[in-house]
């Protein structure tokens, strides 16, 4: 094998990935962690964590993750800020491609976490924080007297339509092709609210503007003049690339693993929120340790 082949590549630098790195590196496996956003993952968002064992008074997410990172560094795992864009299985060798190049390893541990689903239309990333928001209750007050759209067909989205309509001049509710469930009590109120217009069956294809959001284009090619777009979509796994590479998932994108944390591909493991179990830091760390222990055994079998 090439000299720069790692024993283990861990994709994702949240609690599961960092725990896997601690276990693997402590056992002298040549270990690489790839994290494209912030090392620490979604745990960084946690203001105060009161249920992580060992911290009876609680600890902030950033402080806890700083300790994880210190421990990873102490055992010598390599951490690179690179975004994974591809994954291939060549049997005893796995290849992980990033925007900077590619890395190869005997085993791979997927700890890609979950993320709030994006609309994934042109303009969304460009206007984040400049009219595109993912938290109606947080950012709604900035749109007082303005025109906005709330995208999403779930209950949270329906609820947020009403929240935003308390101050906005006009709210376009865009639930998507499936529409809202008839069970949502908000829907009837929305239909009776003159500030709210439900655009059933329509989808946004582009968010437009210059410095700030100025409008959206819909799938029937019509356009709406808007000041803001609230994207309130369900959470899903961030593992589309892995699915394309043949990693088995359920319908929601959650990676399927066996009792050892191994996916349907030999030598490829998954841990933490990307397998949609627990969604807690404590469960993620446990799964990270389990995957690393299994990967250690597997790596010994690879020549």
């Amino acid at each position: 094998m090439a000299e720069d082949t790692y024993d283990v590549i861990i994709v994702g630098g949240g609690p599961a990935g960092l725990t896997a790195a601690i276990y693997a590196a402590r056992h002298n496996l040549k270990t690489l962690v790839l994290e494209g956003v912030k090392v620490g993952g979604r745990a960084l968002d946690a203001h105060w964590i009161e249920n992580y064992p060992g911290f009876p008074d609680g600890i902030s997410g950033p402080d806890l993750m700083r300790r994880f990172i210190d421990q990873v560094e102490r055992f010598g795992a390599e951490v690179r800020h690179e975004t994974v864009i591809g994954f291939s299985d060549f049997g005893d060798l796995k290849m992980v491609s990033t925007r900077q190049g590619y890395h190869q390893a005997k085993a791979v541990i997927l700890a890609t976490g979950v993320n709030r689903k994006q609309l994934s239309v042109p303009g969304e990333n460009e206007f984040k924080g400049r009219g595109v928001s993912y938290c109606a209750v947080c950012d709604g007050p900035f749109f007082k007297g303005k025109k906005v759209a709330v995208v999403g067909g779930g209950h949270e989205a329906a609820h947020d339509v009403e929240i935003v309509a308390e101050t906005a001049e006009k709210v376009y509710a865009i639930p998507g092709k499936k529409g809202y469930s008839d069970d949502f009590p908000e829907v009837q109120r929305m239909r009776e609210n003159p500030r709210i217009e439900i655009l059933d069956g329509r989808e946004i294809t582009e968010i437009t503007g210059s410095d700030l959001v100025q409008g959206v284009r819909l799938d029937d090619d019509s356009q709406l003049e808007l000041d803001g777009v609230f994207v309130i979509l369900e959470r899903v796994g961030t593992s589309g690339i892995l699915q394309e590479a043949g990693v088995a998932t359920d319908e929601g994108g959650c990676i399927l693993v066996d009792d050892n944390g191994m996916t349907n591909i030999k030598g490829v493991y998954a841990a933490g929120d990307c397998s949609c179990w627990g969604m807690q830091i404590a469960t993620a760390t446990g799964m990270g340790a389990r995957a690393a222990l299994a990967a250690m055994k597997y790596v010994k079998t690879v020549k």
Partner: protein
Amino acid sequence: MVKVELFCSPVCPNCPAARRLFNEAAKRHPGDEFVEVNTYTEAGIERGMSLRVMAVPTVAVDGEIKLVGWPFDEGDLEKAVSEAKS
């Protein structure tokens, strides 16, 4: 001296963590003015809209938006303040 403003809201789940970093930065820069702006008040919203703030948490230095949304870390905040002072 620079004026550093943190726009945050009591209902924003990420704002407490941002506030913690902000307060730590304030201690590192005792000669500068660090002001927290509550965007759940009329005055806070007006101030935010005057700078074209559209999301919380947002950090502005001398009236210029530097950091929008979460996460950002101590280094990001330190860089924003230091660049304004240089």
